[in-house]
């Protein structure tokens, strides 16, 4: 093959590589891209929520500690350690998976991170969409995930979305939460999210 031809092939492949990139978490990856980054939030899946986005729930403000030089939020010797962070996702997208990165060196206690929605139209009607829990004890950064998402379609302004957890000790550390999502546009974007025709008024045989 001539050099010119090789150069053209390299150019074409170089253009293709970003599209073929695989999300590091594997499951739940998607190749969609968000058309516009209007509000300054990440334009593509996943939405990464760093430890710095979490704030105390006010019950015991000194029961968590943001370790800025290592990028995680840890529990302390005080009881409590409950924190939360908002989740901003585009309306009508579909959540496909929920991941956390963490360090859990506490042999006696694990912790769970919840992805939750609460209704904005009635009182205290919340639903945990996904949960990811730590296990065992290790100084390593590990990952937990949930790919079974309850009510995965983002509906705004009907619901608010947030991530929360309680870090039971100084040996439990949350690094980030990641939410993978994809487009829900098309024929199932108007209340027929089941992907079947069960909600259709009439169905031709």
């Amino acid at each position: 093959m001539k050099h010119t031809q090789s150069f053209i092939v390299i150019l074409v492949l170089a253009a293709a590589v970003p599209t073929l990139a695989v999300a590091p978490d594997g499951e739940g990856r998607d190749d969609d891209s968000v058309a516009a980054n209007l509000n300054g939030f990440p334009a593509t899946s996943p939405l990464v929520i760093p430890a710095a986005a979490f704030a105390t729930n006010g019950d015991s403000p000194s029961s968590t500690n943001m370790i800025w030089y290592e990028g995680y939020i840890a529990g302390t010797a005080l009881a409590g350690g409950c924190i939360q962070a908002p989740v901003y996702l585009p309306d009508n997208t579909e959540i496909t998976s929920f991941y956390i990165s963490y360090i859990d060196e506490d042999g006696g206690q694990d912790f769970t991170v919840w992805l939750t929605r609460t209704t904005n139209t009635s009182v205290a009607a919340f639903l945990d969409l996904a949960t990811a829990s730590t296990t065992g004890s290790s100084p390593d950064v590990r990952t937990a995930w949930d790919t079974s998402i309850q009510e995965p379609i983002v509906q705004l302004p009907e619901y608010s979305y947030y991530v929360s957890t309680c870090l039971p000790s100084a040996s439990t550390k949350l690094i980030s939460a990641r939410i993978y999502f994809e487009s829900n546009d098309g024929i199932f974007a108007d209340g027929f999210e089941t992907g079947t025709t069960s909600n259709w008024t009439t169905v031709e045989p």
Partner: protein
Amino acid sequence: MKRLAGIILGVVVALTALPTHALEGYSSPMVVPAAAFHNDGEDPSGFFFHPDGYLEANGSPVSMYAAVYLPDGATVESVTLKAVDGSDTCSAQASVTAVLDRASISSETIHQMALVSTTGASSTMQSPTDSTVFYETISNIHYRYYLRVLLCSASHHFYSVEINYSE
């Protein structure tokens, strides 16, 4: 040359077969949940984020803040508060109030854009709306935007603020 054309055609076909449809992106309304709000530091234990997804206070007035991100050039049409205002004995802050402010990035000037408050005492969700918005055009170059929510009682349950805007 035919071989080269075949290779390029193969790559193009492979790319075309990938799911490349774009998402719609973020759009109005902007819903700022209770989980986005943090204390001003005056009373770091004066509030509680309930696991059900709302903020409540502990009997004394407390201020909570959240950043607001809106597209540059957008027009804020209205601000709606989602809150429950149950019976309480707070006189200094008898209702749940949300204020949308803008602050200049080059001075200490603050402009109040909208204000909404609950009324009366009820165990149901209230949705007061302010459609008279001042300084309604977003200019992210010159201003920063944030919400301020004022609570007092454990029966004040703040859920979210909904900001409707047009582009």
